[in-house]
């Protein structure tokens, strides 16, 4: 299946190819030779993943410097710096370039950096991306790109703006950088295995940072502050487990389908095990309907102590692709292995590192990576599944784009009153 009339972009009216590449030169072009300029990096969101992204960025290129850091919570910055000590001279973040608080992102962007790494909770991503692109910074953005429809639309506008300004947007859908998974999916998208007939993907795991049942906000903490500290457990910050975690499987569905637009989704979900004060579901089952009668089915759950797996099974005419661990192709009988990815011993590659290596290599060549549209679309695909479950309705791709869902206002402060939204009940819950 080739991206043609089925390309999502035609549904969105964002015709990337025809956007005038006018105006602003890339910061790496012109008089400064792209290959020699020192690139200053700003880290926004200094948790474990953000620090991981920083270490990958610092490893990707010889002439980079971590220049500024921002996080909602000051101790996160100290911890992060402590964990980046091994990079010694590549880290130069004095007190005056460490910014704490919810406006830290803006200060990092204004601190004289060339590249920013966006690793705050996903609810903040569209706002942070917009600010970075407007300021002309190249961006690495972790997944997902947003948690609601308004956020996705904002990301698309930012991606378009980035195109006009010759700014790169690299993404954290990390499996698209895993050598073995790339080879396996390449066999699908190249047509080598024939048409995709159906797909069943799973993301069955455990809650990553579970809020305990009965755990309440401490008196000293603001409502928003407490929710941000436990962001995985709140829909407006994480988008729920389907967006925050299982979006990897959603993204691989989009990938297997060559990033064409889906038609609709029907889904179930709920809270079977969770009894905490958060408002995210703990399981989803979704059928994505695609053109040509293809159903892509996925299951997500975070059930502690039970059966767990993360497997994509892509059933094609000439074989079944099994990923992401031990990528392989089974024959049409579903059993006999036709191909299997085997990295050479000692030559295994870290997909997170590959992502940054490619990002910085392209910046050095003066090439622009702009994956913003597909990042937005993969995020929207997850929202399609989530909203189908939350509403209990068949939600079409077209209708979803007409919605104006916005889970939280920008500019909330730690001490603000921001009541936890009720857990969505199908039939009662409405997609705004």
């Amino acid at each position, binding site marked *: 299946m080739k991206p043609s009339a089925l390309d999502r972009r035609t549904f969105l009216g964002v015709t990337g190819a025809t956007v005038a590449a006018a105006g602003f030169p890339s910061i790496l072009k012109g008089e400064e030779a792209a290959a020699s300029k020192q690139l200053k990096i700003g880290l926004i969101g200094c948790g*474990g993943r953000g620090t991981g992204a920083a270490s990958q960025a610092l490893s990707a290129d010889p002439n980079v410097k971590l220049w500024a850091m921002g996080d909602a919570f000051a101790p*996160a910055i100290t911890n992060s710096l402590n*964990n980046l000590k091994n990079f010694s001279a590549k880290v130069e973040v004095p007190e005056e370039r460490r910014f704490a608080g919810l406006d830290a992102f803006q200060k990092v962007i204004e601190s004289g950096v060339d590249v920013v790494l966006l690793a705050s909770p996903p609810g903040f991503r569209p706002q942070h991306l917009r600010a970075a692109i407007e300021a002309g910074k190249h961006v690495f953005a972790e997944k997902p790109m947003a948690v609601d429809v308004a956020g996705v639309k904002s990301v698309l506008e930012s991606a378009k703006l980035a195109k006009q300004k010759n700014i790169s947007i690299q993404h954290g859908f990390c499996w698209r950088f895993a050598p073995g998974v790339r080879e396996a999916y390449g066999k699908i998208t190249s047509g080598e295995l024939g048409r995709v007939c159906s797909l069943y993907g799973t993301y069955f795991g455990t809650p990553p*940072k579970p809020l305990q049942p009965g755990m309440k906000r*401490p008196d000293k903490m603001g409502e928003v502050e407490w929710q941000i500290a436990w962001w995985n457990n709140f829909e407006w910050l994480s988008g729920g487990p389907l967006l925050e975690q299982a979006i990897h499987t959603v993204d691989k569905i989009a990938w297997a389908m060559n990033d064409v637009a889906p038609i609709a989704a029907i889904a179930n979900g709920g809270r079977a095990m969770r009894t905490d004060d958060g408002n995210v579901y703990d399981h989803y089952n979704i059928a994505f309907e695609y053109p040509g009668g293809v159903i892509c089915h996925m299951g997500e759950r975070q059930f502690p*102590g039970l059966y767990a*797996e993360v497997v994509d099974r892509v059933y094609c005419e000439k074989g079944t692709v099994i990923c992401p*661990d031990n990528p392989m192709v089974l024959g049409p009988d579903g059993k006999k292995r036709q191909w299997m990815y085997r990295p050479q011993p000692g030559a295994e590659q870290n997909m997170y590192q590959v992502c940054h290596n490619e990002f910085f290599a392209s910046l050095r060549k003066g090439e622009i990576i702009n994956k913003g549209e597909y990042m937005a679309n993969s995020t929207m695909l997850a929202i399609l599944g989530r909203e189908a479950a939350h509403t209990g309705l068949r939600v079409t791709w077209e209708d979803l784009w007409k919605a104006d869902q916005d889970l939280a206002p920008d500019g909330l402060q730690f001490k603000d009153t921001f009541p936890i939204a009720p857990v969505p009940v199908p039939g009662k819950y409405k997609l705004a």
Partner: protein
Amino acid sequence: MHSRLLSVLPLLIAAARADDAKLPHPELLPTTRKIHELVAKETAPAADAMKPFSEKVPKAADATFDLVAVPGGEFTIGSPAGEAKRGEDEGPQKKLKIEPFWMGKLEVTWDLYQPFMDNQKARNKDGTLNRDNNLTTSEPPEQKDGESLVDVVTQPTPPHLPMHFGMGEGYSKQYPAVGVTAHAASKFCEWLSAQTGHFYRLPTEAEWEYACRAGTTTAYNFGDDPAKLDDFGWSVANSEYQYQKVGAKKPNAWGLYDMHGNVAELCLDQYLPDAYTKAADGATNPWVPVTKRYPTVYRGGSWNDDPDKLRSAARGKTEPALKMIDPQVPKSVWYFTNASWLGFRVIRPLKTPSVEEMHRYWNMDGDSE
């Protein structure tokens, strides 16, 4: 045991005796003390009255595992210079004395390990219970209402992805637990001890090889011919590139399964290439305590190894690359995200150690990478 350890690392051990505060993680000592009291309640049998037994694990839905009685004795560690595919680090051979212990008949399986790993409590990154909303700070190991001694043993944070890596049939009692760091395995032993009242730990490298050989001096515990390996172990030659059900092959002479292959097994020791040069001939229960996170010893080879790596004397060592695809920094102390071939087996020594020794066995993560 201290006097015997002196033969290996005299300075370190002497220092530990002088000052408890020099023990690793002294803040966790109260928990060790309580477990020690529990273990000390039971009188150990005489060495010649040790019997195989089955241990029930309440926190693992009463799952059980079988232990084989391994008699004390003497053996020669390492391989002779002429052994095919021998590694430099397997010599010089030394004669050692080993005291009796029980050893898991099988590699530790997921039905035992998953309840420890998926413990359903909010935990700080170091595994203490999270009581302050901040995952990066540790809280003291106090028991609060509704919490048991077992709960306050430091335990893993949830895994980033299912740790069976799509092999086998999910977390199942048929398959070995893998991707576990030596620190995590040691904490699992503490968790087991806290609920069974029996002291468990990883085997030392010497105990492991002694148990694997089961009295033999050949390259494998069934002889020297790798062609016979098909009957006794899983290597890259016969495993279909994944781990296999535990106990599916023949056991060694002492009734231990999968000592060759399936998953390599973690040991207690820091890896030193010249460990045997330093070891004293005739030493009893030698052990090289861990002071650095890498490298530490693993033994037995795996489904992912060529048959020669499965030999009784073959030594393996951990390295930072075993955590390569951990997306977070600092990388988790609990998971080897790139070691789907590395598991472990527990032992229960006949003699109950002192509180300090127990504590040292269970707090082995080292403080530097």
